[in-house]
Each structure stands twice: as C-alpha cells, then as structure tokens.
C-alpha cells in the first residue's frame, strides 16, 4: 500500500498523468460496476430494460470505453433499482479508490433489499421511538402544564410523545 501511495504521489505531480489516471479509473469503475450489478442478468435483458442494444451494454462493460453518457447511466441506475451519484473529488481520494477496487466493493443493494427501507428496520425504529416516548412521558408527568408550556425542551418532549406513542397514549393528558 505504501509503495502504491509513494508511486502515485510521484506520478501525480504531472498534470497529464493524474488526469489520465482519473479518467482511466472512472472508465474502469463504470465498466466493472455495471458488470458486477448486472450479475446473472444477460446483457440483452439489461439492454431491454434500458432501451438499448446488447452491443451497447457490451461497450459500456469495457474498461477501455469512455464515450458513456450520463443519461444512459441514469437509465441503468433505474434498471438496477439504485440511484446514480456524480460528484467532483480530490485527487487524494483516488488512492483508496484504487486500493479498494474489487467486485465486493462495487456491489450495491437494490432498493427492495436496502436495510434503510426494510420492514425490520422500520419496526426497530418504531420500538426505539416508543421507548423514548415512554421516557419523555415519565419526565412530563412530574411537570405542570404551565411548566411544559414555558419550556422549549419540555414542549418538544410533549410533541414527541404525542407523535410517537401508539395504543394508550401516556401523553394524552399532557396535551394542552
């Protein structure tokens, strides 16, 4: 790793070299990630999903291809049930990008498998909210309505209890 960092640090002093590296890496990244995300799907099946030809997908999956278009990548993102992210980066980020360039790191979970939107995750969050609401409720019961109205933090806690308590609402009697 240190050897690579030293080599790139020296090479990147040349502007043409660092841009060639950056562009070459971007082409390789796009090609390798499309192929990784396609998985068992055939190039023809993916082509049908994005409204292009199999040969178009084959070209995109070639590390030496550089004429890809953002609009095509957008369509591919939708076909993969993912979002497309484009950002400008510092050259220093290229070093870990190259070091960690492997198929495992290129894989992404489609929306349906994304834990951020999974049922389990939602249930866990709901449970956390109920626990928090119960704690807030205990605090609020020791306060008068006037105290709650006069304190921003207590008002926030009251609103939280009202919003996230299911079933018998322990905060119902606290609502002004």
């Amino acid at each position, binding site marked *: 790793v240190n050897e*690579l960092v030293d*080599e790139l640090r020296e*090479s990147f002093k040349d502007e*043409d*070299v660092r841009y*060639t*590296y950056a562009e*070459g*890496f971007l082409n*390789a990244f796009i*090609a*390798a990630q499309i*192929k*990784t995300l396609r998985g068992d799907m055939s190039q023809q099946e993916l082509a049908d999903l994005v409204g292009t030809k199999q040969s178009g997908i*084959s070209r995109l*999956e*070639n*590390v*030496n*291809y550089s004429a890809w278009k953002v609009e095509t990548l957008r369509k591919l993102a939708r076909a993969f049930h993912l979002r497309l992210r484009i950002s400008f980066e510092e050259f220093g980020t290229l070093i870990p990008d*190259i*070091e*960690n*360039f*492997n*198929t495992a790191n*290129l894989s992404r979970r489609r929306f349906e498998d994304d834990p951020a939107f999974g049922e389990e995750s939602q249930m866990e969050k709901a449970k956390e909210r109920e626990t928090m609401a119960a704690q807030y409720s205990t605090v609020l019961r020791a306060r008068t309505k006037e105290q709650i109205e006069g304190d921003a933090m207590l008002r926030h806690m009251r609103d939280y209890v009202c919003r996230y308590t299911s079933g018998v609402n322990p905060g119902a009697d606290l609502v002004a």
Partner: protein
Amino acid sequence: VDDDGQNVIRRWLAETGASTRQRTVLQLQITLFESGGPEVLPGSIVAVDDKEEFHAMKVKAEKNAATLTPVFCYGPFSDSEITFLAGAPIHNGLLKARDILPVARYNRETLVAFSTRRRRERIG
C-alpha cells in the same frame, strides 16, 4: 528482462511508440488488476491460447492509436502473481497477441529456469 538485461515490456513500448497516455493507462490497469483481479477489468483481459496459459491485457487509451496488448501468464512461481512476458507486434496497424505466443512461451521457460530474470518495475 531479456538476455541484454533490458525490460522486455519497456523495450516493446518504446518500439511501438506508445504515448505517455497509453503507458499510464496500461500501468493503471496493472495496478487495478493487483487490487481486484481480472473481474474488475471487463473487456481487457483475454486468453490468447486455447489452453488459457497466456492472456493479453488490452489497453485502448487513445481513439486513433493501436490497442496495446502485452501478454502475461499467471505465476509462474505463485498463484497470486502475474508476469508480463512479451508485447504483441504491430501488423497493418494492429497488435496481434497470438503472433507473440512463441516468444511469451520462451520467456516464461527462461524465467522458470532463471527466476532472477524477473523484475517488478513500473512502466508508466
């Protein structure tokens, strides 16, 4: 390295007149191969013999330039390494990897006999 102690890939790059950009992209692809193996270089790594003992790394860095096709083998001393053995010559503006197979085979045999003939050097 060859009998004269010259890096055969560097010599080949000089003979083909490879530009700095071509050498840089070739070096990048070699570095990426080290990171992620052949799977992260789709369209670049192709077998050049029926037994799949020899492979070529196809590097097209410029629209109007010939595709560079250095030939390598896995090993020969360890499964986790590759060794570049020769570069394909240009015929009618095209580099044909199959044409260089006898040289690649000879260089690998030489290397197995004299392991000190191998060097790890950057080419771009």
